[in-house]
């Protein structure tokens, strides 16, 4: 029974991640750049194994850069 319970619960996390992404894109002042930053952080943490704190801080820096550059 436990594998099914875990699988269903993990589905909730997947759903939450998608909902978070959509709501964040809607609330962002530069939606396309926000999605790009998210994909970049995902890539550097999953593929390049960059430490997560550095990736989070890099995301914040990229956000400031996107605001300064007037990205959409």
């Amino acid at each position, binding site marked *: 029974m436990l594998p099914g319970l875990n699988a269903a619960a993990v589905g909730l996390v997947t759903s939450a991640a998608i909902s978070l992404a959509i709501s964040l894109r809607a609330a*962002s002042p530069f939606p396309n750049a926000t999605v790009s930053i998210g994909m970049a952080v995902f890539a550097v943490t999953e593929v390049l194994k960059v430490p997560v704190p550095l990736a989070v801080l890099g995301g914040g820096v990229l956000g400031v850069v996107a605001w300064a550059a007037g990205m959409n």
Partner: protein
Amino acid sequence: MLTGLLFQLPGLVIMTLVGVGAASFLKTPAPWLRGATAGLGAAGVALVAASAFALTRGACRGDGLLLSLSAASAVVTFYTVKIWLFPVLILAGGLVTLAVNAYRRKDMAAKTSGDDEAHVERFSLPRAAGALVVVLWAAVLVATLVAASKVPDFPMGLDLWSAMFRAGSMIFGGEFFSPNVFPPMFFRLVGAEAFFSFLISFFLRLSKKKKKKQAVRSSSLYFTKTSSSATATLRSALPNASILPTPGSRARTSTWASRSCKASRFLFILFFPLSFAVRPLSSFLLSLSLSLLLFLPLFSFPFPFPPFQKKTKQTRFQLSRDRSSTSLPTWAPSPAPDPRARTAASTPSSAPFSGGSASTPRESSSSTACCRGGRASGTFRSTGGCSRGSTPPRWGS
């Protein structure tokens, strides 16, 4: 109770103080701060997605049925959010697994679960009392769900009770982001505008991520083996206890987890003067600094574990024997105990707090096994802190 208190109270207090400080600060954020928040939010969502992928890989392990259950759960919960939907979906997933097990005539858990689940043993609660507890829990849960959906103006206290009881009812494991709790709590209580607080919470928990598995194992050891080991309990409870020196784990403690703890101290030193210099940020940073100041002594708690000892061939052999063993812990008096072990066992139960200078390499390896959870917990050996009363533990079996 002590484990839960020490594990959750620092986060509760820190996030409350940060929330109070950030409440006024985030009402009208500066444009550059909105940009930074959007970038941090994107990074946070990316990490949530990475966690979802990792959890899906770990929980489903390529099984088509489990992947289908996970996908169906994601589709349904994305389409609609109801307070009763999350427990119903989780229960439905379990029932489907039961039905498929009965059809296939084999236990799916044997394929998908690791060694840790195989070592879980029964509590000493009688079956009738256990059934009563389950029935009572289910009755209160159903009553709470019905009342929350029927009563339009739920009083604040009952609303809090409802949210906490539903969240607590759905916790049946310890995973990052608490997968079955985080989504409903997020949709109900938080929202996108509080994403910055969520990221701070995430950032503060980063130092525990790499050692999460070890901490969970320590907790499961504590509860399943009912070992009253203050060492194992406090090690699993302290926020950064995993970076404390443990026997045989010097290489692991030099990972970025320890560096992130040092970075948090550096940020505190940096933030505290800034909180006075930068006026708009003062309330937020001051509260963050004060909360860190409150718990920094806990982060660097001088817990006197036994000193680092290199593993010997004997200890490796002993641990490999422990992994293969599934017997219960032996607490019977040894006919010819090691005099050093007798000395350690006769020490009062607060012995781990008074220093580990008397520990031998063999004791250190036993303490490691005690702290690292189920795999090495077949034959439970301990120092004085792990022993019950004055009964000396049996060394080797």
